[in-house]
């Protein structure tokens, strides 16, 4: 904590340069509603609210004013009860149109409250008794809550709950009736697998938690939800399996999350940048995934997961480099195939990083390393090319990156068309125009494909950026330059940690017991122990000796 980051210093200088308004010190924590009452202009206004009043109209006026008279806020006044002297006690329903399931509100709240159901129920003689009756007998929603503070109430109403007030009582009943249009569960587009479950996370935190809970039925699955972002007030859930994840790790994650004090969390990337270990590294230090099965696998290894409301990406920590090279399928396919695929992916990572640089270095400096006929071929192809190999590679790589970016942004309908045209133009025409050599097109195209083979999209992005630096080094110092670039990268990765776990573990430092699940995956019946990030006391994950064998005494009888 005490260490001053360069970024921190820059921020200080910046704020010193800005005249007038300066950032205030951090408040103690955001999850306590009391903190939300303070109005801090630097984060944007928040209605400073007192406790609820007993007067129904005053409460309504306050809420309407707090939301600035927003038209989608619905305040519905009803009369409680159906007979006797108490008939006609006023009650108020507050909720947002579109955030609640109207059928639930009508059937389970308004209907019983207005006495449409038959028979005398409960006591309405005083406001407090009426409130108790509503709570215990009338409302047929399972998730209810009481509050007497406006900040909590407003947050709940904004989250899609329905608040019920009774005239004469300074409390409100908050009934969960959330329901809004939502994306259906789809196959995760960025991590598809041939074998494996097809469901992916959506934007709804609750259903995302359900995906996990449905797969882990043990009660030791722990979920801690906190609210982050002063204006967005986004729900963020920290999930772990108690007794498997280290308590220090969970505490550390909780602490890092609680330290966040920003106005809003829109996507998981915000959280990632605010809690990672080395903010200046090009490499992601948290694993992100759209697949519930991967999250469950990670939880069972003693990792923690961070789910963010509104983001289909779930963050998993700690994440090592080896994790970025794995795909869900590695664990479902036969282990030999899985290991082979892992090796292919590791190779393609290096190809994506180094291949253009190797081509530049070999053709510029080390022609003797290639077979004579091959180098003659290359020389013949490069005959009319006006540029050195580096410039040639730069042209092609840049245009490939432009194509790639454009094909992500293009509308889905014209995307393929434009890509094909782009590829044809860049590939075929550039060669015929004598701008680049065909061999270079092969190299760059293969590099592009290889960078898609590793499923860790974030690592792929990092490699895309670093590739240019390595190419420049290769152009100036040949293979020595490439090795220099690789060494710088290696030293950087060595110094990187993800929630305390060295990034290159289990390779450097070498943790032999964890090597069973890196690029090469051992069969499940050999994975008797969790990786060393898990709680030491509970390392064993399965009974030993489960290697399937034919029954003793020859063939089994059919």
């Amino acid at each position, binding site marked *: 904590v005490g260490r001053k980051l360069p970024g921190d210093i820059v921020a200080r200088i910046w704020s010193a340069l800005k005249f007038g308004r300066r950032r205030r010190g951090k408040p103690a924590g955001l999850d306590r509603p009391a903190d939300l009452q303070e109005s801090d202009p630097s984060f944007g206004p928040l209605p400073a609210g007192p406790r609820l009043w007993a007067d129904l109209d005053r409460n309504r006026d306050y809420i309407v004013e707090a939301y600035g008279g927003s038209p989608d806020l619905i305040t519905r006044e009803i009369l409680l009860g159906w007979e006797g002297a108490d008939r006609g006690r006023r009650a108020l329903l507050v909720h947002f149109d579109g955030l609640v399931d109207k059928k639930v509100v009508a059937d389970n709240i308004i209907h019983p409250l207005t006495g449409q159901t038959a028979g005398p129920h409960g006591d309405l003689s005083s406001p407090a008794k009426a409130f108790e009756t509503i709570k215990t007998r009338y409302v047929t929603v399972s998730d209810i809550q009481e509050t007497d503070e406006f900040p909590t109430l407003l947050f709940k109403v904004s989250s899609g709950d329905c608040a019920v007030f009774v005239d004469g009582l300074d409390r409100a009943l908050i009934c969960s009736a959330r329901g809004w249009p939502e994306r259906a569960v789809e196959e995760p587009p960025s991590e598809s697998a041939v074998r494996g479950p097809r469901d992916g996370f959506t934007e709804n935190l609750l259903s995302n938690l359900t995906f996990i809970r449905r797969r882990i039925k043990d009660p030791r699955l722990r979920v801690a939800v906190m609210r982050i972002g002063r204006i967005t007030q986004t729900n963020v859930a920290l999930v772990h399996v108690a007794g498997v994840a280290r308590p220090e790790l969970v505490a550390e994650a909780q602490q890092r999350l609680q330290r966040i004090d920003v106005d809003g969390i829109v996507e998981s990337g915000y959280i990632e940048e605010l809690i990672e270990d080395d903010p200046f590294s090009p490499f992601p230090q948290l694993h992100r995934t759209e697949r519930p099965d991967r999250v469950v696998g990670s939880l069972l290894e003693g990792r923690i997961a961070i789910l963010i409301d509104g983001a289909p990406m779930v963050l998993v920590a700690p994440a090592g480099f080896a994790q970025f090279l794995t795909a869900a399928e590695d664990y479902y396919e036969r282990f030999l195939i899985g290991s082979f695929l892992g090796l292919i992916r590791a190779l393609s990572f290096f190809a994506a990083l180094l291949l253009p640089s190797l081509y530049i270095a070999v053709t510029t400096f080390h022609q003797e390393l290639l077979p004579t006929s091959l180098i003659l071929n290359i020389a013949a192809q490069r005959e009319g090319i006006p540029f050195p190999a580096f410039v040639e590679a730069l042209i092609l790589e840049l245009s490939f990156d432009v194509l790639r970016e454009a094909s992500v942004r293009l509308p889905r309908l014209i995307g393929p068309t434009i890509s094909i045209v782009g590829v044809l133009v860049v590939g075929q025409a550039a060669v015929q125009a004598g701008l680049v050599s065909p061999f270079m097109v092969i190299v760059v195209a293969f590099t592009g494909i290889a960078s898609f083979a590793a499923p860790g999209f974030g690592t792929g992005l990092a490699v895309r950026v670093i590739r240019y630096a390595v190419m420049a080094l290769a152009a100036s110092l040949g293979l020595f330059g490439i*090795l220099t670039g690789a060494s710088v990268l290696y030293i950087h990765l060595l110094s990187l940690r993800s929630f305390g776990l060295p990034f290159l573990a289990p390779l*450097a430092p070498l943790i032999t017991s964890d090597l069973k699940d890196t690029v090469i995956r051992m069969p499940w019946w050999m994975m008797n122990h969790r990786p060393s990030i898990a709680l030491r006391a509970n390392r064993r994950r399965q009974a030993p000796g489960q290697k399937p064998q034919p029954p003793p005494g020859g063939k089994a009888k059919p």
Partner: protein
Amino acid sequence: MSHGSQIWRISGRQLAVLVVLNRLFSATTLMPLITSDHMGRDAWISGIISVVAVLPLALLVAKLGSMHPGETLAQYAVKVLGRPLGGALILLYVWFFLALAATAGRTVSETYAVAFLPFTPVVVLVTVTVFLGCLAARQGLEVVARGAEGIALPVMAVFVLILALSSDQLRLERLQPILENGVGRVVTAATGSFALFGEVIAVAMIIPFVRPAKAVRGSLLWGLALGGGLLVPSMIWIVGVLGPTADSQVNPLLALARMVRLANFLERIELLPLVIWTLMAWLKIGTYIWLAAIGLTQLFNLDDYRPLIYPLGFAVSGLSLVLYRSTADIVRFFSADTFGVFATVFEVGTIGLLLLATLAWRGVARLKPGNQGGEAKVNE
């Protein structure tokens, strides 16, 4: 306790790997050259002698470390020798580390320049290599040790691979006649190899950071044994494969790699030595720059070693350019009767001096009333 004596934690295996890689680096860029130059056929016998002879030295270093638990050489040298003498000794050590780093930078650069980049000025190669070392050193001992651990297996695999793949051309009769020039000559020549193995005294600066502390002895012995176990066969192979031409090779390991021809598809594997040299070079330079920085930090009670790294790096780059004029110069310097004698005297002499001084200091401490056994106060 100041930041200068910050506690790093490395494992026994990491220590062993540092020792192995340190020795293998010299073995792949320097050693075959020197021994072939002087000894030819009997070089491997010198190798065996030197690795056996260095084991007691390593044990002494470990012993010194266990006599001063929790302290580096720089700390206990001042304690037992007094500030003027101890300080001078530390400065000598710092110079020794810097000179070794500079030599490592120069040798790898020369090898590059000769074998792959004939038109690139050596100063560029030296600067880049030393810069990599500084990057690693700045991250501290743990990162250096992890880096060594990560590349150790590939490096040793490359080593073994080159030997294995060139073994079809191995003619052991080229090693005969054995001991043609007499035993005395072999033993004298062994000092050159011994001095390189003797760099293990640098471990005295790392011992307090090894966890568990009792792993130090075993790790040192394993490291040296493994280093010797790879070195001696390579000497045999160089003579056995290259024959009488071994002496004239600029770099015998590279020559070995160039000899590899496997069924017409596995050829031109001389890239592999290139890769392992670069990695080992910055690891070695990084280790020594870090050691020098820590020595200075502890001598002058500085708060942080990191500001020293880049200035020391500049010094190392400069040194490696001015210390030697050419490869021939390095070879001459590293021969048994120059570096061998100098380094052996320095290594054995300083460790022996420290051991005697420690014993004396213990004796004095025991005489003092109220002090039992003269055990050093353990720095936490």
